[in-house]
């Protein structure tokens, strides 16, 4: 994409705030619901300043009640609003699980009733958040019909995907990786634009493709950069549901070798789904085992030395690439 040189440099976090601001200015149906999101601006300050601009009627500080936050967002949505909910940490989405999986996800299929809500999930580990402030819960929702699931890795995509999520007539879970909030920054177009729910090739290559999303795109990129002699493609999925199957299969056809990276726990993660897709639909192009790198099936430990031992690292991804390149 051609960039105007005047585009502001925003952090990933600022890009998300900007998306909320733009959406709220453009569409008065957009309201925000969450704990401490008003005056306080949210636990991560994503909604900072929005109360001042849009007032307490549209930036709604709720009691602690995740089921009610999501369920009432569904209620507001079906009578024409566009609610955006914040879970204080993605981990608390388990407390809203029933409303998301059973109410929001099934409404259109069952009753023809659209529930255009967005649930923002500050997710992921890497800073000693421990078992309850580090989770990547996306696979639960990928396994729940009727939900869209997005996971941007860049500031530009974070804004564009969030704007597209708010405009979408369906329930969308929006994973914002906490470890990218202030670490990642980039040029972000002003005003409104929509990023497609499709994968993006971060880096070209034809010997091997690394498939990742969210923070793992950055970890993977670092690993790839340590292997300058290999031609390694990096595919950033961006949208986990819908899954850009065409882009995945095309990459496999071009590259024949695949590493799939997930920060989520290993079993039944998105990586498993992507692998199974490839093993079924691009088998004849494969020249090596499909290698997965993920967090093992453990809660995310607190101590840095332990957390580093479980989260997918540059070393592990590089090791997987090395192994496959030599296969």
């Amino acid at each position, binding site marked *: 994409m051609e960039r105007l040189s005047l585009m502001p440099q925003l952090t990933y976090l600022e890009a998300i705030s900007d998306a909320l601001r733009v959406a709220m200015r453009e569409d008065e149906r957009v*309201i925000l619901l969450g704990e401490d999101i008003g005056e306080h601006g949210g636990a991560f300050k994503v909604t900072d300043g929005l109360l001042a601009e849009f007032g307490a*009627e*549209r930036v*709604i500080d*709720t*009691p602690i*009640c995740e*089921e*009610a936050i*999501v*369920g*009432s*967002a*569904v*209620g*507001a*949505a*079906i*009578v*024409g*609003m566009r*609610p955006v909910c914040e879970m204080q940490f993605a981990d608390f989405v388990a407390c809203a699980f*029933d*409303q998301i999986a*059973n*109410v929001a996800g*099934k409404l*259109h*299929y*069952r*009753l*023809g*009733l*659209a529930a*255009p809500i967005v649930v923002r999930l500050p997710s992921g580990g890497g800073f000693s958040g421990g078992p309850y402030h580090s989770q990547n819960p996306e696979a639960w929702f990928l396994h729940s*019909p*009727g939900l*869209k699931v997005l996971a941007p890795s860049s500031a530009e995509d974070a804004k564009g995907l969030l704007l597209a999520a708010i405009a979408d*007539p*369906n329930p969308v879970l929006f994973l914002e990786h906490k470890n990218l909030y202030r670490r990642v920054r980039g040029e972000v177009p002003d005003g409104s634009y929509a990023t497609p729910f499709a994968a993006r090739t971060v880096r070209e290559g034809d010997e091997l493709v690394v498939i990742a999303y969210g923070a793992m795109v950055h970890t993977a990129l670092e690993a790839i950069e340590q292997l300058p002699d290999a031609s390694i493609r990096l595919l950033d999925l961006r949208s986990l549901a819908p899954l850009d199957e065409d882009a995945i299969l095309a990459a496999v056809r071009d590259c024949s070798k695949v590493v799939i990276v997930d920060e989520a726990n290993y079993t039944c993660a998105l990586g498993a789904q992507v692998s199974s897709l490839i093993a079924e639909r691009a088998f004849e192009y494969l020249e090596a085992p499909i290698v997965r790198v993920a967090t093992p099936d453990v809660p995310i430990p607190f101590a840095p030395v332990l957390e580093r031992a479980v989260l997918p690292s540059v070393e592990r991804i590089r090791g997987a690439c090395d192994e496959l390149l030599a296969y």
Partner: protein
Amino acid sequence: MPSPAGGAAAAAAPLHLEQSDRVALLRFMLLHRAVEDRGASLYKQGKVPGSFYDGRGQEATCVGATFALAAADPVCPLIRDLGAHLVKGTPPRDVLAHYLGRADGVSHGREGNVHFGDAAHGVVGMVSMLPDMMVVAVGMALAFKLRGEQRCATSFFGDGATSVGDWHEAMNFAAVMQVPAIFILEHNNYAYSTPSARQFLVDPVERAAAYGIPGVSVDGNDVEAVFEVVREARERALSGAGPTLVSAQTMRMHGHGLHDDARYVPPEQLAEWTLRDPIELQSKRLAALGVDVDALAADVKAEVDKATEEALAMALPDPASATTGVFCLGEPIPVGSGDAPWSGFR
């Protein structure tokens, strides 16, 4: 035990109901019962798949409450509340077609038994998980408040549903936000096989005040009494005074579903409540005013006969449709944007 239904209410003519309204209330209750009886017999004939639930004995609560709402006020009925659908304007034929899993039933064969809703008529179909729809109603009410619309949202639920966490979150959040919501507790003494004494120690209506919400008890078998308290709750909601919890005391006269012989219900309890049938009560009132209730019943029967015939003639869904419609592809159509011919209280 509550005193025999409607003793006092029958005496004085109700303030906000004209005679035609009172007849309409009876008609909807008759229709509720007739459609369910027909559904049950189609179920026993093997024509209705899945399971079958009805609201026998509780017709007054859903009919009286929904009649007190305007066309623009959405409702979230539960498994005993067929009357709410009917008052809102969903035609009996569509309900029967739904039971039968037909392509043009309200849910196009995707949902069964009482899990349906007709969004255009302002009826949001229930989900099984109790009482999830309460928080959905809170959200609708929140939207009405934010937009300054003179509308309220109503959610029904049973005594058993009051034990679930969502009940509490709905009550508290609705109170804090002072939204125009009406919560209708259908206290029918049982949750499946569980008597309310094992569900809670104190009637949940007593909890209302501790949330800062008015709690009102009413004889749930007196359709006019239910109408009146819900009418007041709606006025309160529209005036900005927030939600109301209405507890309607009634009795589940059948098993939990048709599969349940309800041998856990003492026969004396059923016998006592048989004397308090809501349809009989309203019939007596109107008969005393000279209304020909037999003709009304015959009329309703004829309507249901015709609806049944039509529903049975409707096509089954196309198997290819099984995987479509998971996502909305166009612009969402909000709840209550159709017309509501039966729009209840004027």
